[in-house]
């Protein structure tokens, strides 16, 4: 079961092209996930059950690489459920059963033998409520790399600095790396969580209502950050804020009662939705 080689270390460096080149140079791939295709994520005929209850019905969608895909829909329609299937966080839920395929980096992630650790390293997640660990800023960010066996101080320092820079927080935080992360403001904590997710070099970043607990200014910062980040990572974001979806996403998918009603370019979905339900929801939420 040679799924995951330990030597994948700091693979995040540089732009996408560089990392692609690196991959080509080294025939021993860093993991078995291969993100050279156009779509970062492909979902095929996905059904999901919580016990008897079917929370997702025949979902089919494709999320293109280096774009932001927004998922919208009324409460309880299954957005969080879907986003959690993308890195198998649903495995933690008792009685949750998945049928269908989710292809990420050329692999069906629900195949037997897929290494969860490797999957989650490639598919990072940012949660609704900021959830920094009760440790220092530094240790928060170093947690992921340490999980993957990086122990050298120099290497970790580098990763911490790079991740914080990527999350546009380096200047804010470089003097308080050893202070507890719990002392940061809510917005800072959330961006720290993004930096923490970036530290393991994910190809995809899942965000479930990342700004719903934040004030408008922090929200703006995170939106800016997303636009910046999509150069290097593919972002999937659940949001209840229509303006936010319209502002920053490239693709938008609309869900209703466990079904995906419509997915398309954001502009198209917002200006001329194909489905009357989508229109009703969007106009209702805008108006």
């Amino acid at each position, binding site marked *: *079961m*040679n*799924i*995951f*080689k*330990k030597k994948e270390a700091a693979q995040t460096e540089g732009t996408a092209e560089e990392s692609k080149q690196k991959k080509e140079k080294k025939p021993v791939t860093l993991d078995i996930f291969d993100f050279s295709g156009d779509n970062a994520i492909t979902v095929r005929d996905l059904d999901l059950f919580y016990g008897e209850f079917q929370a997702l019905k025949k979902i089919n969608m494709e999320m293109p690489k280096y774009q932001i895909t927004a998922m919208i829909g009324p409460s309880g329609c299954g957005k969080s459920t879907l986003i959690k299937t993308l*890195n198998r*966080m649903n495995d*933690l839920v*008792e009685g949750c059963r998945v049928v269908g395929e989710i292809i990420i980096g050329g692999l069906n992630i629900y195949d037997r033998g897929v*290494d*969860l*650790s*490797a*999957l*989650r*390293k490639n598919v*990072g*997640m940012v*949660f609704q*409520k900021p*959830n*920094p*660990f*009760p*440790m220092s800023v530094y240790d928060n960010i170093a*947690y*992921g790399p340490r*999980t*993957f*066996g990086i122990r050298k101080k120099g290497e970790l320092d580098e990763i911490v600095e790079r991740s914080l820079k990527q999350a546009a927080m380096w200047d804010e935080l470089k003097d308080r790396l050893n202070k507890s992360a*719990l002392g940061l403001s809510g917005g800072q904590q959330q961006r720290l*969580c993004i930096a*923490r*997710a970036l530290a*393991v070099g994910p190809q995809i970043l899942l965000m479930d209502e990342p700004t719903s607990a934040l004030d408008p200014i922090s929200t703006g910062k995170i939106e800016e950050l997303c636009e910046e980040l999509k150069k290097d990572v593919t972002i999937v974001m659940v949001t209840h804020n229509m303006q936010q979806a319209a502002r920053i996403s490239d693709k938008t998918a609309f869900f209703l009662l466990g079904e995906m009603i419509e997915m398309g370019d954001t502009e198209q979905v917002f200006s001329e939705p194909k489905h009357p339900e989508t229109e009703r929801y969007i106009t209702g939420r805008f108006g």
Partner: protein
Amino acid sequence: MTKASSTKVKDTSAKVLFIVCACLSILAVFGIICYILAASIPAFREVGFFQFLFGTRWNHNTDTYGILAMLCSTLVVTVLAVILGGVIGVFTAIFMVFWCPDRFHLRYSGPNKFVQKMVAWLNKINLRTIFDQIIKLLAGIPSVIYGYFGIIVLVQGGLVYMDPNYRGYGVLATCIVLAIMIIPTITSLTKNALEAVPAQYFEGALAMGNTKAQAVFRVVFPAARSGIISALILGIGRAVGETMAVQMVAGGMVNFPTGLFIPICPLTVKINMEMGEVVPGSLHESALMATGFVLLVLVLIITLSVNFVPKEFKGKKGTRVLQGGGENVVYRKKGLIPEILKYCGMVCAGIVVISLAAIILFICINGIPNISWNFLFGGDGYEGHSLAPAFLTTFYVIIFTLIIALPLGIGAAIFLNEYAKPGSKFVKVIRTFIDTLSGVPSIVFGLFGYLLFVQIFGRSVFAGAFTMVLVILPTIIRSTEEALRAVPMELREASYGLGASKIRTIFKVVLPSAFPGIATAIVLSVGRIISESAALIYTAGMMAVASSSVSSAIDPTNAGSTLTVFMYSFFAEGLAYEEAYATAFVLLVITFVLNLIVYFIQKRVKKKR
């Protein structure tokens, strides 16, 4: 091996280890039952089971063994103590929850600056917290101190004058001492039960025009009934198993408890009095084990019966009062009884405070003058008695016990909270066994340790430590579990989301966040070990005061007395009352400091949240 599969192996083997830790409580309970039963079989066979249970004479010189009188003594004393302690404990809890003011509201408008400052300072004190701490302190005071207080103050200072035979000890003295000892258990559990009653019951009753006292006694109190009954049952368990304090005030003569001043010999006392001089392998030894077995069965029945307190009848009466609209409303004009009960609560709370104050004063007044550097740390060079060997033994027992018990207890807690399906049968079984283990009386642990660990290690600090592991395991499991439960799920998710394995998540994220809880567990365990005596006497040993020395205590394969046992020897040998007081003072200070540490840890945790 690839990383993926090696993590898997690690995860699975860790899980297996945790399950083993969790099952240890089951093993311990069965082990105790089996060992003691096996050791009692000769007695049951020789004497005859019924002859043993219903015989009224006990004389080991003639090998006559019948425990009926002792059994009756235990039962009668327990019932009386629970009635007395139960009433006081429950009313104190009611007072604490509903009437204890937050702060003093003293006023002073005079010119004296000092008095002004004092008043301001007094007004700042949080009375509820103080009361909580009083109860916890009462719970932490070692049995030997209660016994000492009982014999000197209660018996020689009061009851002697009421006893026509001028003895004072016996049934009544035992009841009073036991009542004081079980009050903390009953009060704190009752308080939890009262606080768990939803606030809307209380508010609803007030809204219908009930007075506060009516609302409390007609609605909240009945709603908390099942919790209060459980509290009383646990109080009974504690009273049945208490040894050292009872031994000092019961009188130690095998009699039926036919009067308040009859000297008696409850089961625990018989065991404790004769275990010291028993010939190994004799029928006498077996008879004492059999006595322990009867005691164990009694306690098991009592502890297990808590599980049969119906949970449904929790709240029924209370809700009915609230739901009843119009004609069903229980509404009487200002009821007299609730008002009277309210004052009962205040009186009982007063009794509790006064008892504690009396014990503390008694120990301080008699103890402080006898404290000296040499007494504390004098060592072998010092002519007089010194506590140094006892400190050393206590320290060893604490360290060795914790080294063994902590990993086991934390492992069990991890299994229960992180791996097991909540509410599954298996978990329920384990929980029941943990509760059972925590209800086993110290002296039974002592007998078990004598049968198993002393056979392995000889009478030594190690045997004592292994015995204490079983004693403190439930405490560690419970408080660790509580702490794990308080760690937010989001932190675990964050860790998994970064690709961390379960085992890494537990060790790097969950356990560090639960650290204050684990620290509390450690401090509580230390307290328990320090206050323990009955479980240690036959395992770690009880040295004659004169023969204890640092040079012997320094080697943990030797027997040694811990502080409480040492204090008991001072008393039992009847030579050195001053030293007994001084030791009691030291114990009191340690208990106080440990309580303070727990308080500050928990305060910090609360602040963080």
